[in-house]
């Protein structure tokens, strides 16, 4: 029996599509009676599918979540008798449930497998259930067959020329030899690539394909999976996922894998030849005798010394060697110490033959975004695990270049794009020196679930990505990693 109750998540007006997604940061939600005859006392608790995602509830205080009171239910909420749609909403907040003891989150494995049940407080009768999804970025090695399929379909659609738009080609054109200095070799490397990943992920989530039965297939539930190259990825480099190279380094796929149609639109090449035309040779650059294969061993992300086979940089080394951003990201090359950009990032790129091995060509391989998703995750892990946190955008330990960057003829560590207050190229449309000369791909796509960072992101907005520091849901960028939670505070 429908008691005439409605819940909205992230969008009270209900004018947007695909708004019912949450990660670890509290998102605003509203509940009301549709045609009330009297006030009604209700309790909210989880009522999703078996093995689906689950949420944690927060009461609202002055429009903000009460972070001191997370709970698995919200009891005795009084829904007003008024039918005025402007005033009879009751606000609360929800976030994906994360078990801080086990380190496991109650993430969704399918779209809308999570539910917020509204129960009559006096009779405990279920009045209404709102379905949603706990949507986070996952380890690519552990995706279900459906999760893989949806991701592969989505990127294949983006890499198909859609006449007026060609999203994957646009992404490739932002990451060329001629734009490399804007986005590599300086502090903005990590924030810039965080925005770049978000651009792809929002492109994916906006996709809709109409089906012959009249329905529409949405990809709003899809996130970019990460390639954890510190462990074995036996389920990733298979013919039904990212493919497996033959003896000539040409990646082979199953006949039903969407990627058999993959095309590599390399810059300055007008000729488009359909795939599978992807070269990704299993090979380390320094050894023909070592048949490296990420399907049965972790990636040998070499440090800058010794033999790569013995000296690989570990996840722990990456996260714990440094507590300040500058050394964490860039290392100290004058002392022969690598930062994240060189190792593991650079090492992961140049472990292969094919486009992935070079900056200007690498986004032609979908593996690029999964590699970078893990680089972003390692940054996130460092931000969360370093004592005192590294989410405060105005703390030099969180980001070393504070304020506005200067002018110049070419990008350098002192020019704009590299400082907290700067807007990020190319979303800011700035095509004047020191910026690269093209920036006409438009702003960063909007998300129906969050408003940040807006079409023209500022660098500082990338740092506190799920509002651990600001505690302000308006700062959420709308993505999360399955193994990195938001910490809840206590009263001082």
């Amino acid at each position: 029996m429908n008691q005439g109750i409605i819940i909205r998540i992230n969008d009270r007006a209900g004018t947007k599509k695909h708004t019912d997604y949450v990660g670890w940061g509290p998102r605003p939600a509203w509940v009301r009676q549709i045609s009330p005859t009297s006030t009604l006392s209700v309790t909210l608790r989880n009522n999703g599918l078996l093995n689906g995602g689950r949420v944690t509830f927060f009461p609202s205080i002055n429009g903000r979540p009460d972070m001191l009171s997370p709970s698995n239910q919200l009891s005795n909420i009084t829904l007003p008798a008024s039918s005025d749609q402007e005033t009879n909403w009751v606000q609360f907040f929800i976030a994906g449930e994360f078990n801080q003891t086990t380190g496991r989150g109650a993430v969704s494995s399918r779209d809308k497998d999570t539910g917020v049940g509204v129960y009559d407080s006096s009779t405990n009768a279920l009045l209404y259930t709102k379905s949603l999804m706990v949507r986070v970025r996952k380890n690519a090695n552990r995706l279900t067959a459906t999760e893989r399929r949806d991701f592969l379909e989505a990127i294949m659609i983006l890499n198909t020329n859609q006449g007026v738009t060609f999203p994957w080609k646009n992404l490739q054109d932002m990451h060329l030899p001629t734009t490399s200095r804007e986005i590599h070799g300086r502090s903005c490397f990590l924030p810039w690539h965080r925005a770049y990943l978000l651009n792809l992920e929002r492109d994916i989530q906006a996709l809709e394909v109409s089906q012959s039965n009249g329905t529409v297939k949405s990809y709003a539930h899809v996130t970019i999976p990460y390639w954890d190259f510190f462990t074995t990825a036996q389920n990733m480099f298979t013919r039904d996922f990212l493919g497996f190279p033959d003896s000539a380094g040409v990646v082979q796929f199953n006949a039903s894998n969407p990627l058999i149609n993959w095309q590599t639109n390399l810059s300055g090449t007008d000729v488009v030849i359909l795939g599978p035309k992807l070269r990704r040779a299993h090979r380390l650059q320094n050894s023909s005798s070592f048949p490296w294969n990420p399907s049965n061993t972790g990636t040998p992300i070499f440090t800058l010394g010794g033999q790569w086979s013995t000296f690989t940089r570990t996840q722990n080394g990456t996260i714990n060697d440094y507590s300040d951003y500058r050394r964490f990201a860039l290392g100290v090359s004058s002392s022969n110490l690598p930062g994240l950009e060189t190792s593991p990032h650079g090492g992961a790129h140049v472990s292969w033959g094919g486009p992935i091995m070079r900056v200007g060509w690498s986004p032609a391989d979908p593996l690029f975004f999964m590699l970078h998703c893990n680089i972003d995750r390692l940054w996130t892990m460092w931000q969360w695990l370093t004592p005192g946190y590294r989410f405060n955008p105005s703390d030099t330990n969180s980001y070393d270049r504070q304020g506005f960057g200067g002018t110049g003829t070419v990008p350098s560590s002192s020019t704009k794009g590299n400082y907290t207050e700067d807007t990020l190229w190319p979303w800011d449309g700035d095509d004047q020196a020191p910026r690269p000369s093209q920036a006409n791909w438009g702003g960063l796509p909007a998300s129906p679930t969050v408003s940040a960072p807006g079409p023209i992101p500022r660098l500082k907005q990338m740092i506190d990505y799920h509002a651990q520091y600001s505690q302000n849901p308006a700062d959420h960028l709308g993505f999360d990693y399955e193994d990195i939670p938001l910490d809840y505070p206590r009263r001082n």
Partner: protein
Amino acid sequence: MSEYTYQDSEYKKRLRNEVLEKSITVAEQKKQAVNARKIFLNTTKPIDERLEAAKSMGNFTEPADIKKALAIFRDENQPEIIRSYAFSSVAGLVLSDEALMQDAIDALKAGEGEGQIALSALRILQLAEISSPDMMERHTASFKDALRTVVDHKNKNLRSIALEILAMEKDEFAQRRLLESLENKGEELIEPEVAIQFLAYDLHANYYPVLRQIAQNPPNQIAKREALRNLGTDVESKDMLLETVMNPEEDPEMRHAAVTALITQAPELAVDSSKRIIIEENGEHLDELKTALLNTLVYTEKRATSDRPENLFLETVSAESFNQELQRLKVSPGSAELKEMIDIYLNNR
């Protein structure tokens, strides 16, 4: 923020403890590394002992060690493998030291002995391209020059990486050498199936004759497939591509490669041929090919047939009858993968 305080969760504590446990091992390793470095840098020790030490010495960070390692790298009386490890161990300096970057380029170009030192140098130069793009840009000309030099090195691994980087850069010298290698003029630089991929980074019309020749008279099946794939823009290959597509005796992998090439110059023909194979040819050995063809139709059919006047579209299989045949195929014996793909195709109409 100030009114709040945070307490480490059990999860965070556990991760921190793991770090702590590992740092004990790391401290152990660091102790070993200090010893290993001493042995490696001691030129009076036996080579075998120094090579064994190299496995655990890590990267040199002490100024005195760095100085010694650089001296060993430059000492032509030291064995090649020792010099290559010495350079690898200080290679991070290349990212910020312009003179050392030039040394790396010189070592690449020199390509001494078996090419071990050159490979170490090349590896670090590839990293420098990523994380020191400003410095690398100033050395582009000499880097390319060094790469061109090692194209003829006896170390195949070195040759291959150099050729691939140059081919990506559309370097005319490398393109000419790859073409000559394909044409069997002089010595083979790299396997033909790899050479084709490198040339495809920047496809030129003057490659077509040799690609056609390889497609018709292939040294191996992979080379044939790669040649077919890259003839998509060669108008003269249209008939040959179509014949390959429609030849029931042909290897299914070649037929699919030929279809994807044909889509580039004759999309309607490619779509129509694919449909005919799917509904007219029989046998379970074709299930995989049919699955692949349907898969390709899902992503290319709409594009191939849009923006074209109806009357120009040479359609021998109507959409209606094709869909009916697919329904029939779905209930006939066949692979689960094919049936699944039929559903995906029909859902996407």
